[in-house]
């Protein structure tokens, strides 16, 4: 459902993405990991069209997204930091996105309700706590029951209960046959949610493996396995 070819992005002279080739299928949760600044968010934003790549191609549902916008109706997106208008009330925020999305009429209120967003709907978005902001962005992302979910560190500010709620929702989406691309620094999140792990390093894919492959190859936890793989690749490169 999502495929990229030789995706390149520079900020000034600084290359953030270097020839990213990836192919993501539906019914699968792909975890995206990598050190800070390795280009994860930039990659996600490229798919959304928030960042315009310098070269390479991105296909969503087999269609090149260059200069397109309509494909975004298939995507629910949770940004890493919620830059939504601060002077909008929560309920207005929902009203606006629903108003804009004329293509969908049956909304998925599950997260909205489980996160108890109704209780804060008269607050301004800017007044919300960090965690509540993240709840709101999550509820917005899932609201239209999209086929593709792109989540940029979705649990980073959430309390433990909320984390579980979100994880359940993600797993449910996967079993519904959706494509989930989730970026996270938290190994437990990835090991619980993901079927596959893509590891970015300095704008390149260091490895792209199914989770069982990673764990079986070394024995031990996912975290330890990842560390081992990275060490191995590094030493290979040094030889």
């Amino acid at each position, binding site marked *: 459902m999502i495929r990229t070819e030789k995706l390149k992005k520079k900020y000034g002279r600084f290359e953030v993405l270097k020839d990213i080739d990836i192919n993501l299928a539906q019914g699968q949760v792909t975890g995206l990991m990598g050190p800070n600044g390795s280009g994860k968010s930039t990659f996600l934003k490229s798919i959304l*069209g928030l960042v315009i790549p310098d070269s390479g191609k991105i296909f969503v549902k087999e269609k090149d997204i260059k200069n397109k916008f309509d494909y975004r109706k298939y995507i629910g997106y949770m*940004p890493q930091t919620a830059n*939504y208008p601060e002077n909008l009330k929560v309920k207005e925020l929902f009203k606006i996105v629903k108003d804009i999305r004329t293509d969908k009429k049956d909304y998925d209120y599950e997260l909205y309700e489980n996160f108890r967003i109704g209780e804060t709907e008269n607050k301004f978005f800017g007044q919300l706590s960090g965690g509540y902001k993240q709840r709101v962005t999550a509820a917005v992302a899932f609201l239209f029951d999209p086929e593709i979910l792109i989540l940029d560190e979705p649990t980073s500010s959430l309390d433990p209960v909320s984390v579980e709620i979100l994880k359940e929702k993600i797993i449910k989406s996967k079993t519904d046959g959706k494509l989930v691309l989730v970026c996270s620094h938290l190994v437990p999140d990835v090991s619980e949610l993901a079927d596959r792990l893509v590891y970015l390093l300095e704008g390149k894919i260091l490895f792209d493996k199914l989770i069982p492959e990673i764990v079986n190859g070394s024995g031990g936890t996912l975290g330890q396995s990842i560390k081992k793989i990275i060490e191995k690749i590094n030493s290979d490169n040094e030889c």
Partner: protein
Amino acid sequence: MSVKILKYIFLELVRSKFILIYTAFLFTFSFAVIYIGHDTAKAVVTLLNISLFVVPLVSLIFGTIHFYNSGEYIQLLLTQPVNRRSIFLAEYFGLSFSLSAAFLAGAGLPLLIYGLSISAALLLFTGVMLTFIFVSLSFLSSVLNKDKVKGIGLSVIIWLVMSLIYDGLILVILFAFSEYPLEKFILILTTLNPVDLSRILILLQLDISALMGFTGALFRDFFGSITGMVTALILLLLWAALPGLAALKVFSKKNF
């Protein structure tokens, strides 16, 4: 789609109250000027000064601030199936229409109450054109600068150049080359600056006696003709369109 976005931009502008303050300011000022002067012709002269001074300044500064403040809003919209161009155009027309409406209500109503003259109508027309032109420039200045302070800085510079420095240069040229016949050259120079062009269009109504003396006759012959009026209109439209299109081009490639 653009219409819906327009609606939200209007709502946001209303919320910011600035437009209302702007309207109230213009209205109070115009009313006072007309009321004290008892004379629409003289009022038009005073309003001309303030409209050539305030309209570009407000459009530039407020346009820039608005564009930066809309950043979050734009980001929200960009996660939805909305065209970047639609967003940009909606922002542009939403703001330009609001500021124009404020100008028409603020400066136009008092003039209308006291009887509209050709010069007053021209004043209102050029005021609206200048609003569109300087909102366009403000957006260009905004998309060229990531940093809000730099963006506002550039806008202030644009304003200074168009309203003050440009005319200063013309004066210097006139002094330096006073021996040469410069009428045509000066005519072209002034026509190229939308503030000067607007000013002269109105002067041709207000101060025709003084203008008839020198280059004025040239101006009157030119702008009095259909070709001249069409040229003036096209020039003003180009000034509104070109910076806006350049800004749109940058905006289309912008990373959020």
